[in-house]
């Protein structure tokens, strides 16, 4: 007998759970197919045909989603160009993933916390963070260019999946202090194989911490395809083992991604515990500008996904709904151009980095040993300057 998701749901009766566990507000298993509100041609999927229906976000919100996606993509293309000009050491592009990048930050409040990875530059600029501060890490001036406390946005995380446990702790800590903060954590498909992903989901589940785990399944972890990460039917199924609600969504359907995330955030905020969302999407660019994707995937595959452009899909839908016209599209395009031009100009300036700042913030107060090393570097710099003079 094949086990259908419905059968699994039936086979996990309430009586098997610990008595104290309240009935979950949402089904633990994701919908059997990724949720879609727009089809590939940008037409609204009728609720009768939908695998699982979610309320559509207001039109004004969708227009803003469109605007931010367009600006986000222009930013992303500009950042890739900056690597070619030697202005950035490296850039991991999220072109093609804009529906996820932007919905991830639009689904939460400014007072909520976001835990991004290196892939999330577009999400960060969409959250309102200065693009130069977002790119500080990749330009190489310092590790984190923005103020995480002010933006309630953790530094971009490179050690895979380690941020998931931070999100669980942050969300629990906020609740502990009587605040209704939600933590939304971005994670890639490959990183769901790391132990910390499982520990993070489990901690959030056990402590009912208001966390949304948002997996962008872009099908690759550098070169390694999803089939090497998991034998699960989809990554969204990983939630059920931890007893948390899960959903999967077409990650190139911006309306569906935002609708599903909004529901997940609401679920978490209203005390029903964490929520796992998997978005099926695709990384159009190589892993970073330093990667050669032709070694592990075909151009045909990339072409197929170019045809599933999330921005075009939303534009078609909004035009059809009379919510977007040529003038509005042109205005957004012009805004995006201006944004990129400003970024180009500002990234052309050479940043001034103070070598002696290396010793700041290792500890709250430098140790005597660090003060000695600081004095040594200061002397080296003075000697070098004298040599030049």
């Amino acid at each position, binding site marked *: 007998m094949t086990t259908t998701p419905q059968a699994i749901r039936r086979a996990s009766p309430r009586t098997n759970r610990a008595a104290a566990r309240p009935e979950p507000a949402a089904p633990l298993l994701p919908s059997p197919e990724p949720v879609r509100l727009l089809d590939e041609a940008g037409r609204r999927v009728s609720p009768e045909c939908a695998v699982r229906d979610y309320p559509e976000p207001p039109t004004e919100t969708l227009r803003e989603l469109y605007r931010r996606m367009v600006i986000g993509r222009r930013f992303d293309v500009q950042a890739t160009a900056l690597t070619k000009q030697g202005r950035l050491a490296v850039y991991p592009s999220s072109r093609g993933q804009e529906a996820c990048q932007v919905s991830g930050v639009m689904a939460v409040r400014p007072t909520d916390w976001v835990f991004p990875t290196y892939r999330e530059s577009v999400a960060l600029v969409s959250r309102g963070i200065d693009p130069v501060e977002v790119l500080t890490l990749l330009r190489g001036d310092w590790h984190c260019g923005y103020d*995480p406390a002010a933006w309630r946005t953790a530094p971009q995380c490179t050690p895979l999946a*380690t941020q998931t446990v931070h999100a669980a*702790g942050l969300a629990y800590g906020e609740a502990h202090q009587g605040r209704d903060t939600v933590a939304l954590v971005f994670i890639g498909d490959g990183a769901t194989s790391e132990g*910390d992903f499982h520990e993070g989901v489990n901690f959030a589940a056990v402590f009912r911490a208001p966390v949304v785990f948002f997996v962008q399944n872009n099908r690759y972890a550098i070169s390694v395809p999803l089939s090497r990460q998991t034998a699960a039917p989809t990554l969204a199924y990983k939630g059920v083992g931890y007893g948390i609600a899960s959903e999967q969504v077409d990650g190139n359907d911006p309306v569906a991604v935002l609708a599903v995330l909004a529901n997940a955030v609401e679920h978490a905020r209203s005390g029903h515990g964490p929520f796992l969302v998997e978005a099926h999407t695709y990384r159009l660019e190589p892993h970073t500008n330093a990667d050669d994707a032709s070694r592990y995937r075909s151009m045909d595959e990339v072409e197929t996904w170019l045809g599933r452009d999330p921005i075009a899909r939303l534009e078609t839908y909004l035009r059809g709904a009379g919510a977007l016209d040529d003038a509005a599209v042109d205005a957004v395009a012009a805004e995006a151009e201006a944004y990129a031009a400003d970024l180009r100009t500002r990234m052309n300036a050479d940043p001034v980095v103070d070598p002696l*700042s290396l010793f700041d913030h290792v*500890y709250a107060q430098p140790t*005597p040993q660090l003060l000695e090393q600081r004095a040594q570097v200061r002397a080296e710099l003075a000697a070098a300057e004298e040599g030049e003079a």
Partner: protein
Amino acid sequence: MTATAGKVTMAKALNAALRDSLAADERVIVFGEDVGQLGGVFRITDGLLADFGDKRCFDTPLAEAGIVGFAVGLAMSGLRPVVEMQFDAFAYPAFEQITSHVAKLRNRTRGQLSVPIVIRVPYAGGIGGVEHHCDSSEAYYAHTPGLKVVMPATVADAYSLLREAIADPDPVVFMEPKKLYFASEEVTLPATMPGFGRAVVRRPGRDATLVTYGAAVPVALEAAEAARDEGWDLEVIDLRTIVPFDDETVTASVRRTGRCVVIQEAQGFAGVGAEIAARVQERCFHSLHAPVLRVAGLDIPYPAPKLEHIHLPGVDRILDAVARLQWDDQPDPTWVAA
């Protein structure tokens, strides 16, 4: 707190420090494996759940990276987590969280975020423990910029250094010598002692300096006592914290005595003792009458209980090292080429 005087064990002093910190600062929370109802496998958190409730002291799933990573998030929300690793070797799953996040978050964010977490690690051997229960892992932490590494050796220090660790703005790895948990001393708590980065001369002496910390301190003191019979008057320095390191006290002592032996229980190669020996020779070269020697554990995986006495630096091995400090100005035969 309710002041305690008389014979107190280190375990009780640590418990009192946690209790007093929980009472003094509502941001402090204590969690880990079995720290709630059971009070920890060594009973260090005994009674905290009953007295402070399960929002302040609680058990977690068995996942050390999870425990430390959860603490990072809690610290970001403004709390002051104190976590217990059940045993030294079981802290290794948390190594990535400790080295990549706990140690670096302040620096990565130019001080905009900080993670004042205390990671308590019962460590070292001499208790007849089976494998994976007796590691001395301090060098891994001391090698990581951004962490403070605290090594109490006495009951009063256990109390005062733990209070200080919890109040400190930086993350602290707090290493508790298991074999000293139930040794008791006459003390009055709360005890106030010098802060981090201040070594203490436990026994003044003129002829040579023994530099040590943590579990090895009582052994060094015993060796210094025994050395009197041989006519040596040995000074014993207890470092108390290895990060920050007190060069000043060590240097002043060795410049005066002219001879130095560094003692640690951990295996010697690339250990903290090697760092100390290097620092001493850099700073005291012209005062030294003999090479700085190290007495350490053997460079082997921690042995099974029946053989641990061979591994552990004991009084005899320390006295042998002292004997090799070129008292008659003859080169140490160990290092003379055949």
